């Protein structure tokens, strides 16, 4: 209970800080917007099966735009010299992980919905009739993404060239998650059944496995 309370304090701090500074948030959303526009000009999607090709594009944008935000979640603490203060204030490193994880999850979810709206409006992707299943898939995928993104961000924040290393370490680990994400998003857009899909099992397994592992390993990632 104390862990959850401390985690919510960290989560609140993250949201307030981002609402004040807006830099990572705006950068990610602008990147998503420009990517959708560039995809429109660089790929001829006329006649393409948008539920298949479109879902892959969507997750590619989320992967890149999401890392702009999540990669910064511990780097900014290091740059501002506030990580030690955070450790002292909260005392439990698990609460810091959980708070940052929830903040990243909230951001990724809002980015997902923003992209769904943009892809529906600008690329005519069939998202409007499948909003509920898509929300289900996005939440599960973002839960897995946020676990690893938060942990890797903490792990590399003190490293030289952490901005360079972050995507190189994170992306290969996310490949199974994004394969499942693209497949399930395509199924949802085509109004296919999600439950019982092997991809859904893979996604749930990934979420549980990496949330538990990251929670356990975070204290080593946060150590000086």
């Amino acid at each position, binding site marked *: 209970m104390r862990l959850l309370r401390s985690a919510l304090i960290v989560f609140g701090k993250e949201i307030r800080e981002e609402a004040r500074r807006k830099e990572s948030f705006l950068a990610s959303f602008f990147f998503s917007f420009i990517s959708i526009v560039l995809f429109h000009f660089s790929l001829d999607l006329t006649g393409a099966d948008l539920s298949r090709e479109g879902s892959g594009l969507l997750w590619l944008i989320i992967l890149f735009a999401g890392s702009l935000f999540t990669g910064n979640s511990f780097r900014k603490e290091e740059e501002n010299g506030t990580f030690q203060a955070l450790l002292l204030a909260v005392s439990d490193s698990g609460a810091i992980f959980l708070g940052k994880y929830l903040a990243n999850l909230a951001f990724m979810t809002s980015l997902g919905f923003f992209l769904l709206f943009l892809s529906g409006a600008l690329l005519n992707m069939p998202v409007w009739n499948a909003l509920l299943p898509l929300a289900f898939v996005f939440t599960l995928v973002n839960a897995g993404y946020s676990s*690893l993104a938060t*942990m890797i961000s903490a*792990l*590399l924040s*003190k*490293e*030289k*060239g952490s901005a360079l*290393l972050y995507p*190189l*370490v994170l*992306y*290969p*680990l996310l*490949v*199974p998650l994004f*394969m499942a994400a693209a497949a399930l998003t395509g199924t949802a857009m085509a109004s296919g059944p999600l439950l019982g899909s*092997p*991809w859904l*099992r*893979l996604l749930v*397994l*990934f979420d549980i*496995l*990496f949330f538990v*592992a*990251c929670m356990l*390993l975070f204290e*080593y*990632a946060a*150590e*000086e």
Partner: protein
Amino acid sequence: MAEKIRKCAVAATLSAALLNAAALAAVFFYAPVEASMGEAQKIFYYHVPCAIAAYGLLLLSFVMSIAFLSTGQKEYDEWAFSGVETGMVMIACVLVSGATWGRSAWGKWWVWEPRLTSFLILFMTYLSYLLIRALGTGDPRTPKISAVVSIVAFLNVPLVNRAIAWWGSAVHPARIGLEPPMKHTLLLSSFAVALMAASLLLWRVFSARKAEGTEEGNP
């Protein structure tokens, strides 16, 4: 300790050389030629053992990384690092032999087949581990960071194992039916590759110990 590792490495290397000679003889003169794929199928006798050896080495690295994080003893980190390096050699062998086999059997260098693709993902994942080690040379945090990455990366391995069931496969059959001479040859080549991997691992650990001893002025 370094001397003991060197002796084990020499013994493993000699045994691996003998066993590999026997395995190669079995592959070319004892195992029958497979009816549909022809001579190209013989790659199988080294392709599969390399995959098994890669899993074994990554498992070793995973266990040693946990031991390192729990105890902080540098020896465990050396084993974990050497395990990943040797495992990467084995993964590279799997990818190259898989591509060569694919070229001979299906006319393409690369087929996006789930198990081979999963090995490619593992290769990329552990490449990031090696990148962290290379960029963080001398940094006291690097062993800890790479231990965490090794543990997280190994959690991808069960996904590799289950990949064929979840993603389906058009190339690899789920179960392989083998004639007894084929089974014997596979068993022999598996031992040969396992010993070869073990000798590589031991030489790598020995060289790490030696370098450490030289740094401490204790050659």
